[in-house]
C-alpha cells in the first residue's frame, strides 16, 4: 500500500517538475517572439527546404499506404482466384456435362487452320466437315459419333453406343508423331485395302494401325479382330 502512494507522489513530483520546465520554455518562446533584432537572412531558402521536406513526407506516406492497400487487395484477389480455380478443377474432373461444355470451343480460321470443333453429338454440321476427310463408313451395330476433333492435319472421332462402350478412330500426316501402348500385346500383321498394317491386342482390346503414303490410320477399341478390320477397310472419303 505504502509503495503505491509513494509511486503516486513520485508521479506528482515529476508532473510538477515537467510543468515548471514547460513554463520556462514558454517564457523563452515569448522572449524570442518579441525580439525583432534576430532575422534569418536565408529565410526563403529555409522555407523551400522545409516545405519541400514536408511534401516529400506526404508522398512517401501515400506510397507506403498504397503499397499496404495493394498487398491487402492482392491477397484477397489471390485467395479468391485460388478458390475459384479449385472449384473449377473439381467440377471439371467430376461433372461430365461441365467437361463437355468447357471442351466445346471454336477457333476462327486464320491462314492455316480450319474450324476446329469438339462436339458430343453427330449432326449435319459434323458430317459436312467430314466430307473432305477420311473416316470409317462401317460402324459396329449401335455405334454413332460421340465426339470429333478435326483440323487440316488431323482427324479424331470418338464413337459410342448406348452402353457407353467406345472406340476411337484417328488419322494424321505421316510426319506427325503419336504413341501407342504396345507393351505385352500380341502383334498381328494385316493388309488393309492393299496397305500393310498391324493389330496390337491385349485382353480383348485392339489397336489397328496402318498407313498409306500420306497418312497413318488408327482404330482403337474393344472389338473382335474381324470387326476392327471391317471398320478399317471401310475408311474412305
Amino acid at each position: 500500500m505504502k509503495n503505491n502512494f509513494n509511486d503516486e507522489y513520485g508521479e506528482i513530483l515529476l508532473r510538477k517538475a515537467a510543468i515548471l520546465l514547460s513554463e520556462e520554455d514558454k517564457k523563452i518562446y515569448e522572449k524570442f517572439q518579441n525580439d525583432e533584432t534576430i532575422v534569418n537572412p536565408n529565410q526563403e531558402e529555409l522555407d523551400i527546404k522545409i516545405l519541400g521536406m514536408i511534401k516529400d513526407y506526404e508522398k512517401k506516406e501515400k506510397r507506403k499506404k498504397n503499397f499496404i492497400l495493394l498487398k491487402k487487395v492482392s491477397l484477397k484477389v489471390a485467395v479468391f482466384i485460388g478458390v475459384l480455380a479449385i472449384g473449377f478443377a473439381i467440377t471439371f474432373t467430376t461433372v461430365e456435362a461441365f467437361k463437355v461444355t468447357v471442351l466445346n470451343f471454336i477457333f476462327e480460321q486464320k491462314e492455316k487452320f480450319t474450324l476446329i470443333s469438339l462436339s458430343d453429338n453427330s449432326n449435319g454440321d459434323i458430317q459436312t466437315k467430314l466430307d473432305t476427310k477420311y473416316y470409317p463408313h462401317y460402324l459396329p451395330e449401335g455405334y454413332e459419333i460421340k465426339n470429333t476433333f478435326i483440323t487440316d492435319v488431323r482427324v479424331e472421332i470418338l464413337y459410342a453406343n448406348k452402353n457407353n462402350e467406345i472406340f476411337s478412330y484417328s488419322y494424321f500426316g505421316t510426319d506427325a508423331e503419336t504413341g501407342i501402348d504396345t507393351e505385352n500385346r500380341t502383334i498381328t500383321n494385316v493388309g488393309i485395302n492393299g496397305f500393310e498394317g498391324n493389330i496390337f491386342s491385349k485382353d480383348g482390346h485392339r489397336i489397328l494401325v496402318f498407313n498409306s503414303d500420306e497418312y497413318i490410320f488408327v482404330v482403337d477399341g474393344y472389338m473382335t479382330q474381324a470387326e476392327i478390320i471391317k471398320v478399317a477397310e471401310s475408311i474412305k472419303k
Partner: protein
Amino acid sequence: MTIAIITSIKDENERRFIEELYVKHNKVMWKYAMSLTKNKDEADELIQISFEKIIRCIDAVKKINCCKMDSYMVSIVRNSYYTLLVKKYKEKENIKDIDSAELADLESHDDYESVLEKNSTSDIISALENMPDKYKTVLKLKYVHEFDDEQIAKTIGVQTNSVRMYKTRALRMLAVRLKGSECNEK
C-alpha cells in the same frame, strides 16, 4: 477506392497541419536555434532536425493542446540542438551522476511524499538546473504534452526502454537534490 481517398485526404491534412506549424513557429524557433548555435547554417539545420522529429511523431503532435505548442517547439529545438551536438562533435552526455552512496541512501528511504511536502516550487526549479536535457525533455513530453513512451523515444532518438530509465533517474535525481537542499537548510 474509398479507403484510398480517405488515406489521401488524411495525408493532405497532415501535410497542411505540419505546414501551418512551420509557418506559425519557424521564425521564433530559428531565433532560439540561433541563440544556441551562434551559427546561421547550424540554426537552419536545427530547424530541419526539429521538423524531422515532428514528422516522426505527427500523431502525438496533432494531439498537443494549441496553448502548449509554443513550449513544445522550444523543447524540440533544444533537443535537436543536443542531437546536433552528439552528431557533429560526438560528445557524450554530461550527466552529473548521483553519488552511489546517495542513491543507496535514497533507495532505503524512498519517501517522495515528504520530499514533495517540504519543498517549494523554487526548490524544484533549482533541483532541475543540472538535470540532463534528455531527462527534462522526457518529463515535458510525458507529463505536459502526454506523449507515450514510444513517441518520446522516436522524438529524442533512443530506445523505448531508455525513456522509462530516464524518467526513473530524473525522479531519483530530483528527490536526492531536494533532500540535499532540506539538509542544507537545517
